[in-house]
Protein backbone atom coordinates (compact mmCIF):
# COMPACT_ATOMS: atom_id res chain seq x y z
CA UNK A 1 0.00 0.00 0.00
CA UNK A 2 1.59 3.27 -1.11
CA UNK A 3 -0.06 5.39 1.53
CA UNK A 4 1.44 6.85 4.68
CA UNK A 5 -0.14 5.47 7.75
CA UNK A 6 1.24 8.18 9.98
CA UNK A 7 -0.81 11.32 10.02
CA UNK A 8 0.94 14.28 8.54
CA UNK A 9 1.65 17.58 10.22
CA UNK A 10 -1.80 18.64 11.37
CA UNK A 11 -0.87 22.00 12.82
CA UNK A 12 1.14 23.36 9.94
CA UNK A 13 -1.83 23.09 7.60
CA UNK A 14 -3.37 26.01 9.42
CA UNK A 15 -0.62 28.43 8.50
CA UNK A 16 0.19 26.78 5.18
CA UNK A 17 3.96 26.64 5.89
CA UNK A 18 4.41 22.91 5.63
CA UNK A 19 5.44 22.67 2.03
CA UNK A 20 6.69 24.89 -0.73
CA UNK A 21 5.13 25.27 -4.17
CA UNK A 22 5.11 22.19 -6.37
CA UNK A 23 5.19 19.89 -3.38
CA UNK A 24 3.26 16.65 -3.13
CA UNK A 25 0.09 18.27 -1.81
CA UNK A 26 -2.94 17.09 -3.77
CA UNK A 27 -4.99 20.11 -2.80
CA UNK A 28 -3.75 23.47 -1.60
CA UNK A 29 -6.09 26.25 -0.58
CA UNK A 30 -4.34 29.50 0.24
CA UNK A 31 -6.04 32.43 1.90
CA UNK A 32 -9.23 31.89 -0.02
CA UNK A 33 -12.41 33.94 0.34
CA UNK A 34 -15.69 33.67 -1.55
CA UNK A 35 -18.22 36.48 -1.67
CA UNK A 36 -21.58 36.34 -3.38
CA UNK A 37 -23.48 39.40 -4.44
CA UNK A 38 -27.20 39.13 -3.78
CA UNK A 39 -29.77 41.80 -4.61
CA UNK A 40 -29.08 44.22 -1.81
CA UNK A 41 -25.95 43.03 -0.05
CA UNK A 42 -22.73 41.08 -0.30
CA UNK A 43 -22.60 37.74 1.44
CA UNK A 44 -19.28 36.31 2.52
CA UNK A 45 -19.55 32.55 2.17
CA UNK A 46 -15.94 31.69 2.97
CA UNK A 47 -13.07 33.67 4.37
CA UNK A 48 -9.45 33.04 5.44
CA UNK A 49 -9.44 29.45 4.28
CA UNK A 50 -6.04 27.75 4.37
CA UNK A 51 -5.93 24.04 3.86
CA UNK A 52 -3.44 21.59 2.52
CA UNK A 53 -4.28 18.01 1.73
CA UNK A 54 -1.32 15.69 1.11
CA UNK A 55 -1.65 13.06 -1.61
CA UNK A 56 -3.54 9.96 -0.65
CA UNK A 57 -5.09 11.53 2.42
CA UNK A 58 -8.71 11.29 3.38
CA UNK A 59 -9.97 14.62 4.65
CA UNK A 60 -13.51 15.13 5.91
CA UNK A 61 -15.08 18.56 6.23
CA UNK A 62 -17.82 19.02 8.82
CA UNK A 63 -19.74 22.09 9.86
CA UNK A 64 -23.23 23.47 10.27
CA UNK A 65 -25.46 24.02 7.25
CA UNK A 66 -24.53 27.07 5.26
CA UNK A 67 -20.92 27.21 6.34
CA UNK A 68 -19.70 26.87 2.77
CA UNK A 69 -18.52 23.26 2.84
CA UNK A 70 -19.91 22.54 -0.61
CA UNK A 71 -18.58 25.84 -1.89
CA UNK A 72 -15.13 24.70 -0.83
CA UNK A 73 -15.39 21.54 -2.95
CA UNK A 74 -16.62 23.53 -5.95
CA UNK A 75 -13.57 25.77 -5.61
CA UNK A 76 -11.26 22.77 -5.74
CA UNK A 77 -13.11 21.40 -8.78
CA UNK A 78 -12.88 24.77 -10.51
CA UNK A 79 -16.64 25.02 -10.78
CA UNK A 80 -16.50 28.24 -8.78
CA UNK A 81 -13.98 31.08 -8.79
CA UNK A 82 -12.66 32.36 -5.44
CA UNK A 83 -13.05 36.08 -4.78
CA UNK A 84 -9.57 36.07 -3.26
CA UNK A 85 -6.71 33.66 -2.76
CA UNK A 86 -5.43 30.67 -4.69
CA UNK A 87 -6.55 27.09 -5.09
CA UNK A 88 -4.03 24.49 -6.19
CA UNK A 89 -4.90 21.04 -7.40
CA UNK A 90 -2.19 18.48 -8.08
CA UNK A 91 0.35 21.28 -8.03
CA UNK A 92 -1.45 23.44 -10.61
CA UNK A 93 -3.45 26.59 -10.04
CA UNK A 94 -7.17 25.96 -10.55
CA UNK A 95 -8.51 28.09 -13.39
CA UNK A 96 -11.79 26.75 -14.67
CA UNK A 97 -13.35 23.31 -14.40
CA UNK A 98 -10.77 20.61 -13.67
CA UNK A 99 -10.84 17.23 -15.32
CA UNK A 100 -8.38 15.46 -13.01
CA UNK A 101 -10.98 14.90 -10.32
CA UNK A 102 -13.96 12.71 -9.62
CA UNK A 103 -17.07 14.39 -8.22
CA UNK A 104 -19.96 12.83 -6.29
CA UNK A 105 -23.00 14.86 -5.29
CA UNK A 106 -25.58 14.16 -2.59
CA UNK A 107 -28.06 13.22 -5.29
CA UNK A 108 -26.68 10.57 -7.58
CA UNK A 109 -27.39 12.79 -10.64
CA UNK A 110 -27.72 9.86 -13.02
CA UNK A 111 -29.07 10.02 -16.57
CA UNK A 112 -32.39 8.24 -16.23
CA UNK A 113 -32.38 6.90 -19.79
CA UNK A 114 -29.07 5.13 -19.32
CA UNK A 115 -28.51 1.83 -17.56
CA UNK A 116 -26.20 1.69 -14.55
CA UNK A 117 -23.31 0.59 -16.75
CA UNK A 118 -23.92 3.23 -19.41
CA UNK A 119 -24.14 5.88 -16.71
CA UNK A 120 -20.71 4.82 -15.49
CA UNK A 121 -19.40 4.80 -19.05
CA UNK A 122 -20.54 8.40 -19.59
CA UNK A 123 -17.25 9.39 -17.98
CA UNK A 124 -15.34 7.37 -20.59
CA UNK A 125 -17.42 8.70 -23.50
CA UNK A 126 -16.99 12.34 -22.52
CA UNK A 127 -13.25 11.83 -22.12
CA UNK A 128 -13.05 9.87 -25.38
CA UNK A 129 -11.28 7.05 -23.56
CA UNK A 130 -10.64 3.94 -25.65
CA UNK A 131 -13.87 1.92 -25.48
CA UNK A 132 -12.11 -1.25 -24.39
CA UNK A 133 -10.34 0.48 -21.51
CA UNK A 134 -13.55 2.15 -20.37
CA UNK A 135 -15.43 -1.13 -20.39
CA UNK A 136 -12.74 -2.92 -18.45
CA UNK A 137 -12.56 -0.19 -15.81
CA UNK A 138 -16.34 -0.15 -15.52
CA UNK A 139 -16.41 -3.92 -15.00
CA UNK A 140 -13.77 -3.69 -12.29
CA UNK A 141 -15.64 -0.93 -10.48
CA UNK A 142 -18.99 -2.68 -10.81
CA UNK A 143 -17.51 -5.74 -9.14
CA UNK A 144 -15.72 -3.63 -6.56
CA UNK A 145 -18.84 -1.75 -5.47
CA UNK A 146 -21.17 -4.75 -5.50
CA UNK A 147 -23.19 -3.61 -8.47
CA UNK A 148 -22.86 -6.92 -10.31
CA UNK A 149 -26.25 -8.06 -11.50
CA UNK A 150 -27.56 -4.51 -11.65
CA UNK A 151 -25.54 -3.28 -14.64
CA UNK A 152 -28.53 -3.17 -16.95
CA UNK A 153 -31.00 -1.65 -14.52
CA UNK A 154 -32.23 1.88 -15.13
CA UNK A 155 -31.65 4.37 -12.29
CA UNK A 156 -35.28 4.43 -11.17
CA UNK A 157 -35.14 0.67 -10.72
CA UNK A 158 -32.27 1.01 -8.23
CA UNK A 159 -32.38 1.87 -4.55
CA UNK A 160 -30.78 5.08 -3.30
CA UNK A 161 -27.69 3.21 -2.13
CA UNK A 162 -27.30 1.48 -5.49
CA UNK A 163 -27.70 4.77 -7.36
CA UNK A 164 -24.99 6.30 -5.22
CA UNK A 165 -22.70 3.33 -5.99
CA UNK A 166 -23.22 4.03 -9.69
CA UNK A 167 -22.32 7.68 -9.12
CA UNK A 168 -19.19 6.60 -7.23
CA UNK A 169 -18.16 4.23 -10.04
CA UNK A 170 -18.67 7.02 -12.56
CA UNK A 171 -16.48 9.33 -10.46
CA UNK A 172 -13.71 6.71 -10.22
CA UNK A 173 -13.74 5.45 -13.81
CA UNK A 174 -10.85 7.60 -15.03
CA UNK A 175 -8.80 6.88 -11.89
CA UNK A 176 -8.77 10.50 -10.69
CA UNK A 177 -5.98 11.44 -8.26
CA UNK A 178 -8.54 13.43 -6.23
CA UNK A 179 -12.08 12.42 -5.34
CA UNK A 180 -14.46 15.16 -4.17
CA UNK A 181 -17.61 14.02 -2.38
CA UNK A 182 -20.36 16.40 -1.37
CA UNK A 183 -22.51 14.71 1.29
CA UNK A 184 -22.64 11.58 -0.86
CA UNK A 185 -24.52 9.50 1.69
CA UNK A 186 -26.70 12.25 3.14
CA UNK A 187 -29.87 10.96 1.55
CA UNK A 188 -29.36 7.31 2.52
CA UNK A 189 -30.84 5.43 5.44
CA UNK A 190 -28.58 4.70 8.41
CA UNK A 191 -27.87 1.04 7.54
CA UNK A 192 -27.08 1.70 3.89
CA UNK A 193 -24.93 4.57 5.00
CA UNK A 194 -22.83 2.35 7.30
CA UNK A 195 -22.43 -0.13 4.48
CA UNK A 196 -21.34 2.60 2.07
CA UNK A 197 -18.89 3.96 4.65
CA UNK A 198 -17.25 0.56 4.99
CA UNK A 199 -17.03 0.28 1.21
CA UNK A 200 -15.66 3.77 0.78
CA UNK A 201 -12.93 3.00 3.31
CA UNK A 202 -11.99 -0.10 1.34
CA UNK A 203 -12.14 1.66 -2.02
CA UNK A 204 -9.98 4.49 -0.72
CA UNK A 205 -7.36 2.03 0.49
CA UNK A 206 -7.46 0.06 -2.75
CA UNK A 207 -7.23 3.05 -5.08
CA UNK A 208 -4.94 5.26 -3.00
CA UNK A 209 -6.80 8.34 -4.19
CA UNK A 210 -6.98 11.57 -2.23
CA UNK A 211 -10.49 12.14 -0.88
CA UNK A 212 -12.22 15.33 0.22
CA UNK A 213 -15.53 14.46 1.83
CA UNK A 214 -18.13 16.96 2.95
CA UNK A 215 -20.51 15.52 5.52
CA UNK A 216 -22.95 16.42 8.25
CA UNK A 217 -22.18 13.31 10.21
CA UNK A 218 -19.41 13.58 12.79
CA UNK A 219 -19.08 9.82 13.19
CA UNK A 220 -18.92 9.32 9.41
CA UNK A 221 -16.15 11.94 9.25
CA UNK A 222 -14.15 10.32 12.08
CA UNK A 223 -14.66 6.79 10.83
CA UNK A 224 -13.44 7.58 7.32
CA UNK A 225 -10.93 10.40 7.55
CA UNK A 226 -7.30 10.93 8.50
CA UNK A 227 -8.12 14.53 9.27
CA UNK A 228 -11.36 16.27 10.02
CA UNK A 229 -11.73 19.94 9.14
CA UNK A 230 -14.28 21.64 11.41
CA UNK A 231 -15.86 24.78 9.99
CA UNK A 232 -17.84 27.61 11.52
CA UNK A 233 -20.88 29.17 9.89
CA UNK A 234 -21.26 32.46 8.00
CA UNK A 235 -18.73 33.55 7.08
CA UNK A 236 -17.28 30.06 6.81
CA UNK A 237 -13.83 29.69 8.35
CA UNK A 238 -11.82 26.73 9.54
CA UNK A 239 -12.24 26.37 13.29
CA UNK A 240 -9.84 23.50 13.76
CA UNK A 241 -8.24 20.60 11.95
CA UNK A 242 -8.33 17.38 13.95
CA UNK A 243 -6.20 14.29 13.48
CA UNK A 244 -8.30 11.24 14.03
CA UNK A 245 -5.21 9.12 14.55
CA UNK A 246 -6.62 5.80 13.42
CA UNK A 247 -5.00 3.31 11.03
CA UNK A 248 -6.34 3.45 7.44
CA UNK A 249 -7.88 0.01 7.56
CA UNK A 250 -10.93 0.33 9.79
CA UNK A 251 -13.55 -2.11 10.85
CA UNK A 252 -16.82 -0.29 11.44
CA UNK A 253 -17.84 -1.59 14.87
CA UNK A 254 -14.29 -1.94 16.13
CA UNK A 255 -13.44 1.64 15.13
CA UNK A 256 -16.53 3.04 16.81
CA UNK A 257 -15.35 1.53 20.10
CA UNK A 258 -11.77 2.86 19.92
CA UNK A 259 -10.79 5.61 22.39
CA UNK A 260 -9.24 7.71 19.56
CA UNK A 261 -12.57 7.66 17.75
CA UNK A 262 -14.51 8.54 20.87
CA UNK A 263 -12.13 11.34 21.71
CA UNK A 264 -12.27 12.83 18.21
CA UNK A 265 -16.07 12.72 17.94
CA UNK A 266 -16.52 14.22 21.41
CA UNK A 267 -14.04 16.97 20.62
CA UNK A 268 -15.71 17.83 17.30
CA UNK A 269 -19.16 17.73 18.85
CA UNK A 270 -17.92 20.18 21.45
CA UNK A 271 -16.48 22.48 18.76
CA UNK A 272 -19.68 22.44 16.71
CA UNK A 273 -21.78 22.93 19.84
CA UNK A 274 -19.72 25.92 20.84
CA UNK A 275 -20.03 27.27 17.33
CA UNK A 276 -23.80 26.94 17.21
CA UNK A 277 -24.15 28.32 20.75
CA UNK A 278 -22.16 31.38 19.74
CA UNK A 279 -24.15 31.75 16.54
Amino acid sequence: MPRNTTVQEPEVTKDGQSSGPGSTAAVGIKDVAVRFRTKNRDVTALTDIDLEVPMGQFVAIVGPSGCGKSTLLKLVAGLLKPSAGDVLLNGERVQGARHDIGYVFQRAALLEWRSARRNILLQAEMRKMPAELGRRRADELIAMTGLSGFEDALPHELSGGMQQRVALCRALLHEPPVLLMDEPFGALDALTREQMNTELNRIWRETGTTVLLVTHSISEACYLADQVVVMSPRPGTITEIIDVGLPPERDYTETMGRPEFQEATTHIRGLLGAVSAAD
Partner: protein
Amino acid sequence: MSQSAIKAPPAQVAGVDRRNSPSAGERTSRLLKQSWRPAALLLACFAAWWVIAAAELVEPYLVPSPGATLDVLTGKADYIWQHTWVTTYETLLGFLIAVVVGVFAAVVMVYSATVEKTLYPILLFAQVVPKIAIAPLFVVWLGFGIAPKILIAVLIAFFPVVISMVTGLKAVDPEMLQLSSTMGASPWQTFVKIRMPASLPHLFSGLKVAVTLAVTGAVVGEFVGANEGLGYVILQANGNLDTPMLFAGLLVMSLIGVVLFVLVEIAEKLLLPWHASRRETGVTTTY
Protein backbone atom coordinates in the same frame (compact mmCIF):
# COMPACT_ATOMS: atom_id res chain seq x y z
CA MET B 1 -26.01 -13.02 -10.46
CA SER B 2 -22.34 -13.37 -9.63
CA GLN B 3 -20.88 -13.97 -6.22
CA SER B 4 -19.49 -10.47 -5.91
CA ALA B 5 -22.96 -9.13 -5.34
CA ILE B 6 -23.01 -10.15 -1.69
CA LYS B 7 -23.14 -6.49 -0.77
CA ALA B 8 -26.36 -6.14 -2.72
CA PRO B 9 -29.32 -6.71 -0.43
CA PRO B 10 -31.45 -9.44 -2.07
CA ALA B 11 -34.61 -7.41 -1.51
CA GLN B 12 -33.57 -5.12 -4.35
CA VAL B 13 -33.42 -7.86 -6.93
CA ALA B 14 -37.18 -7.78 -7.30
CA GLY B 15 -37.04 -4.25 -8.68
CA VAL B 16 -35.01 -5.15 -11.74
CA ASP B 17 -37.09 -7.84 -13.47
CA ARG B 18 -38.45 -5.60 -16.17
CA ARG B 19 -37.22 -8.09 -18.75
CA ASN B 20 -40.19 -10.30 -17.87
CA SER B 21 -42.59 -8.20 -19.93
CA PRO B 22 -46.30 -8.95 -19.47
CA SER B 23 -47.94 -11.49 -21.78
CA ALA B 24 -50.41 -10.47 -24.50
CA GLY B 25 -53.33 -11.60 -22.37
CA GLU B 26 -52.17 -9.60 -19.39
CA ARG B 27 -51.70 -6.59 -21.61
CA THR B 28 -55.23 -6.72 -23.06
CA SER B 29 -56.77 -7.17 -19.64
CA ARG B 30 -54.79 -4.19 -18.40
CA LEU B 31 -55.87 -2.17 -21.43
CA LEU B 32 -59.51 -3.10 -20.74
CA LYS B 33 -59.16 -2.11 -17.11
CA GLN B 34 -57.68 1.24 -18.06
CA SER B 35 -60.04 2.11 -20.88
CA TRP B 36 -63.49 0.82 -19.96
CA ARG B 37 -64.52 4.03 -18.23
CA PRO B 38 -63.84 6.43 -21.12
CA ALA B 39 -65.27 3.84 -23.53
CA ALA B 40 -68.45 3.59 -21.46
CA LEU B 41 -68.79 7.37 -21.37
CA LEU B 42 -68.36 7.59 -25.14
CA LEU B 43 -71.00 4.89 -25.64
CA ALA B 44 -73.36 6.75 -23.31
CA CYS B 45 -72.94 9.91 -25.39
CA PHE B 46 -73.72 7.97 -28.58
CA ALA B 47 -76.74 6.42 -26.90
CA ALA B 48 -78.00 9.83 -25.81
CA TRP B 49 -77.54 11.12 -29.36
CA TRP B 50 -79.42 8.11 -30.68
CA VAL B 51 -82.32 8.60 -28.28
CA ILE B 52 -82.60 12.32 -29.00
CA ALA B 53 -82.62 11.71 -32.74
CA ALA B 54 -84.89 8.62 -32.69
CA ALA B 55 -87.48 10.22 -30.41
CA GLU B 56 -87.28 13.36 -32.60
CA LEU B 57 -86.81 15.52 -29.51
CA VAL B 58 -85.02 17.90 -31.86
CA GLU B 59 -85.87 18.45 -35.52
CA PRO B 60 -83.88 15.98 -37.68
CA TYR B 61 -82.49 18.76 -39.85
CA LEU B 62 -80.88 20.20 -36.69
CA VAL B 63 -79.55 16.96 -35.21
CA PRO B 64 -79.34 14.06 -37.68
CA SER B 65 -79.61 10.50 -36.40
CA PRO B 66 -76.45 8.45 -36.03
CA GLY B 67 -77.85 6.23 -38.77
CA ALA B 68 -78.13 9.12 -41.22
CA THR B 69 -74.60 10.20 -40.36
CA LEU B 70 -73.30 6.70 -40.88
CA ASP B 71 -75.11 6.55 -44.22
CA VAL B 72 -73.24 9.63 -45.36
CA LEU B 73 -69.93 8.25 -44.11
CA THR B 74 -70.37 5.01 -46.07
CA GLY B 75 -72.35 6.34 -49.04
CA LYS B 76 -70.05 9.26 -49.76
CA ALA B 77 -66.89 7.62 -48.53
CA ASP B 78 -64.88 8.56 -51.61
CA TYR B 79 -65.82 12.22 -51.37
CA ILE B 80 -65.04 12.35 -47.62
CA TRP B 81 -61.83 10.40 -47.96
CA GLN B 82 -60.54 12.72 -50.66
CA HIS B 83 -61.05 15.78 -48.46
CA THR B 84 -59.84 14.00 -45.32
CA TRP B 85 -56.56 13.32 -47.07
CA VAL B 86 -56.15 17.01 -47.94
CA THR B 87 -56.74 18.11 -44.34
CA THR B 88 -54.45 15.40 -42.95
CA TYR B 89 -51.73 16.37 -45.39
CA GLU B 90 -51.95 20.06 -44.44
CA THR B 91 -52.02 19.19 -40.73
CA LEU B 92 -49.01 16.89 -40.90
CA LEU B 93 -46.94 19.23 -43.00
CA GLY B 94 -47.80 22.15 -40.71
CA PHE B 95 -47.00 20.08 -37.63
CA LEU B 96 -43.65 18.88 -38.98
CA ILE B 97 -42.56 22.38 -39.98
CA ALA B 98 -43.64 23.66 -36.54
CA VAL B 99 -41.57 20.93 -34.84
CA VAL B 100 -38.43 21.57 -36.87
CA VAL B 101 -38.60 25.36 -36.56
CA GLY B 102 -39.78 25.22 -32.94
CA VAL B 103 -37.04 22.89 -31.74
CA PHE B 104 -34.40 24.90 -33.56
CA ALA B 105 -35.69 28.18 -32.11
CA ALA B 106 -35.78 26.69 -28.62
CA VAL B 107 -32.19 25.44 -28.81
CA VAL B 108 -30.92 28.80 -30.06
CA MET B 109 -32.89 30.63 -27.37
CA VAL B 110 -31.56 28.42 -24.58
CA TYR B 111 -27.97 28.80 -25.69
CA SER B 112 -28.09 32.54 -26.36
CA ALA B 113 -29.60 34.95 -23.86
CA THR B 114 -29.48 37.72 -26.46
CA VAL B 115 -31.53 35.72 -28.94
CA GLU B 116 -33.96 34.77 -26.21
CA LYS B 117 -34.47 38.37 -25.15
CA THR B 118 -34.96 39.42 -28.78
CA LEU B 119 -37.15 36.56 -29.89
CA TYR B 120 -39.30 35.82 -26.86
CA PRO B 121 -41.47 38.99 -26.88
CA ILE B 122 -42.07 38.54 -30.62
CA LEU B 123 -43.05 34.91 -30.08
CA LEU B 124 -45.43 35.91 -27.35
CA PHE B 125 -46.95 38.61 -29.54
CA ALA B 126 -47.35 36.14 -32.41
CA GLN B 127 -49.09 33.77 -30.03
CA VAL B 128 -51.44 36.43 -28.68
CA VAL B 129 -52.61 37.59 -32.13
CA PRO B 130 -55.71 35.52 -32.93
CA LYS B 131 -54.67 33.27 -35.80
CA ILE B 132 -58.26 33.05 -36.99
CA ALA B 133 -58.28 36.80 -37.49
CA ILE B 134 -55.16 36.83 -39.65
CA ALA B 135 -56.20 33.77 -41.66
CA PRO B 136 -58.03 35.88 -44.30
CA LEU B 137 -54.87 37.93 -44.75
CA PHE B 138 -52.90 34.79 -45.54
CA VAL B 139 -55.44 33.86 -48.16
CA VAL B 140 -55.02 37.29 -49.72
CA TRP B 141 -51.27 36.87 -49.68
CA LEU B 142 -50.91 33.21 -50.57
CA GLY B 143 -54.05 32.39 -52.51
CA PHE B 144 -56.53 29.53 -52.22
CA GLY B 145 -53.99 26.71 -52.34
CA ILE B 146 -52.70 24.71 -49.40
CA ALA B 147 -49.97 27.23 -48.45
CA PRO B 148 -52.12 29.46 -46.17
CA LYS B 149 -53.57 26.38 -44.41
CA ILE B 150 -50.11 25.02 -43.68
CA LEU B 151 -48.94 28.43 -42.53
CA ILE B 152 -51.81 28.72 -40.04
CA ALA B 153 -51.22 25.16 -38.80
CA VAL B 154 -47.52 26.01 -38.31
CA LEU B 155 -48.28 29.23 -36.47
CA ILE B 156 -50.79 27.59 -34.18
CA ALA B 157 -48.67 24.49 -33.41
CA PHE B 158 -45.35 26.31 -33.12
CA PHE B 159 -45.86 27.86 -29.69
CA PRO B 160 -46.35 24.71 -27.58
CA VAL B 161 -43.33 23.15 -29.31
CA VAL B 162 -41.02 26.07 -28.48
CA ILE B 163 -42.28 26.48 -24.93
CA SER B 164 -42.01 22.79 -24.06
CA MET B 165 -38.58 22.45 -25.64
CA VAL B 166 -37.23 25.53 -23.86
CA THR B 167 -38.63 24.24 -20.57
CA GLY B 168 -37.08 20.82 -21.20
CA LEU B 169 -33.65 22.18 -22.07
CA LYS B 170 -33.67 24.43 -19.03
CA ALA B 171 -34.93 21.74 -16.67
CA VAL B 172 -31.66 19.80 -16.87
CA ASP B 173 -30.17 19.08 -13.46
CA PRO B 174 -27.50 21.79 -12.92
CA GLU B 175 -25.37 19.25 -11.05
CA MET B 176 -25.43 17.05 -14.13
CA LEU B 177 -24.04 19.96 -16.16
CA GLN B 178 -21.34 20.61 -13.56
CA LEU B 179 -20.46 16.95 -13.62
CA SER B 180 -20.24 17.15 -17.37
CA SER B 181 -17.73 19.98 -17.17
CA THR B 182 -15.57 18.00 -14.73
CA MET B 183 -15.55 15.25 -17.36
CA GLY B 184 -14.09 17.68 -19.86
CA ALA B 185 -17.11 17.38 -22.12
CA SER B 186 -17.45 19.78 -25.05
CA PRO B 187 -20.67 21.84 -25.29
CA TRP B 188 -21.71 19.63 -28.19
CA GLN B 189 -21.18 16.44 -26.18
CA THR B 190 -23.13 17.89 -23.28
CA PHE B 191 -25.95 18.83 -25.63
CA VAL B 192 -26.14 15.48 -27.40
CA LYS B 193 -25.61 13.19 -24.41
CA ILE B 194 -27.32 15.13 -21.62
CA ARG B 195 -29.43 18.15 -22.52
CA MET B 196 -31.20 16.89 -25.62
CA PRO B 197 -32.31 13.51 -24.23
CA ALA B 198 -33.27 15.09 -20.91
CA SER B 199 -35.56 17.56 -22.69
CA LEU B 200 -37.43 14.96 -24.77
CA PRO B 201 -40.18 14.14 -22.22
CA HIS B 202 -41.04 17.84 -22.06
CA LEU B 203 -40.91 18.15 -25.82
CA PHE B 204 -43.31 15.25 -26.27
CA SER B 205 -45.92 16.75 -23.97
CA GLY B 206 -45.70 19.87 -26.16
CA LEU B 207 -45.93 17.78 -29.34
CA LYS B 208 -49.17 16.19 -28.16
CA VAL B 209 -50.75 19.60 -27.73
CA ALA B 210 -49.24 20.85 -30.98
CA VAL B 211 -50.50 18.00 -33.14
CA THR B 212 -54.13 18.50 -32.10
CA LEU B 213 -53.79 22.25 -32.58
CA ALA B 214 -52.36 21.68 -36.05
CA VAL B 215 -55.67 20.06 -37.09
CA THR B 216 -57.52 23.16 -35.90
CA GLY B 217 -55.09 25.36 -37.81
CA ALA B 218 -55.58 23.50 -41.07
CA VAL B 219 -59.37 23.56 -40.77
CA VAL B 220 -59.41 27.26 -39.91
CA GLY B 221 -57.40 27.86 -43.06
CA GLU B 222 -59.95 25.89 -45.06
CA PHE B 223 -62.84 27.81 -43.55
CA VAL B 224 -61.43 31.08 -44.75
CA GLY B 225 -60.97 30.14 -48.34
CA ALA B 226 -60.61 26.72 -49.91
CA ASN B 227 -62.13 24.38 -52.45
CA GLU B 228 -61.00 21.19 -50.75
CA GLY B 229 -60.46 19.76 -47.27
CA LEU B 230 -62.80 18.93 -44.42
CA GLY B 231 -63.24 22.59 -43.50
CA TYR B 232 -64.54 23.17 -47.00
CA VAL B 233 -66.81 20.09 -46.72
CA ILE B 234 -68.33 21.39 -43.50
CA LEU B 235 -68.82 24.87 -44.89
CA GLN B 236 -70.56 23.44 -47.98
CA ALA B 237 -72.75 21.15 -45.86
CA ASN B 238 -73.63 24.08 -43.66
CA GLY B 239 -74.71 26.13 -46.63
CA ASN B 240 -76.96 23.32 -47.88
CA LEU B 241 -78.32 22.60 -44.38
CA ASP B 242 -76.94 19.07 -44.93
CA THR B 243 -76.46 18.26 -41.23
CA PRO B 244 -75.64 14.55 -41.71
CA MET B 245 -72.70 15.56 -43.89
CA LEU B 246 -71.76 18.23 -41.37
CA PHE B 247 -71.74 15.70 -38.55
CA ALA B 248 -69.80 13.23 -40.66
CA GLY B 249 -67.18 15.90 -41.36
CA LEU B 250 -66.93 16.75 -37.68
CA LEU B 251 -66.49 13.10 -36.73
CA VAL B 252 -63.73 12.52 -39.27
CA MET B 253 -61.99 15.72 -38.26
CA SER B 254 -61.95 14.67 -34.60
CA LEU B 255 -60.72 11.27 -35.65
CA ILE B 256 -57.73 12.83 -37.42
CA GLY B 257 -56.83 14.61 -34.19
CA VAL B 258 -57.19 11.46 -32.11
CA VAL B 259 -55.18 9.31 -34.51
CA LEU B 260 -52.35 11.84 -34.73
CA PHE B 261 -52.31 12.22 -30.95
CA VAL B 262 -52.05 8.46 -30.51
CA LEU B 263 -49.27 8.31 -33.11
CA VAL B 264 -47.26 10.90 -31.17
CA GLU B 265 -47.82 8.90 -28.01
CA ILE B 266 -46.63 5.71 -29.68
CA ALA B 267 -43.54 7.55 -30.93
CA GLU B 268 -42.92 8.73 -27.37
CA LYS B 269 -43.12 5.19 -26.03
CA LEU B 270 -40.75 3.90 -28.69
CA LEU B 271 -38.22 6.72 -28.35
CA LEU B 272 -38.36 7.13 -24.58
CA PRO B 273 -38.98 3.67 -23.15
CA TRP B 274 -37.22 4.75 -19.94
CA HIS B 275 -39.71 7.55 -19.46
CA ALA B 276 -42.77 5.43 -20.14
CA SER B 277 -41.62 2.59 -17.88
CA ARG B 278 -40.94 5.08 -15.15
CA ARG B 279 -44.48 6.42 -15.37
CA GLU B 280 -45.91 2.91 -15.39
CA THR B 281 -44.08 1.84 -12.27
CA GLY B 282 -45.28 5.07 -10.70
CA VAL B 283 -48.85 4.05 -11.43
CA THR B 284 -48.60 0.45 -10.30
CA THR B 285 -47.05 1.24 -6.94
CA THR B 286 -49.88 3.52 -5.82
CA TYR B 287 -53.41 2.50 -4.92
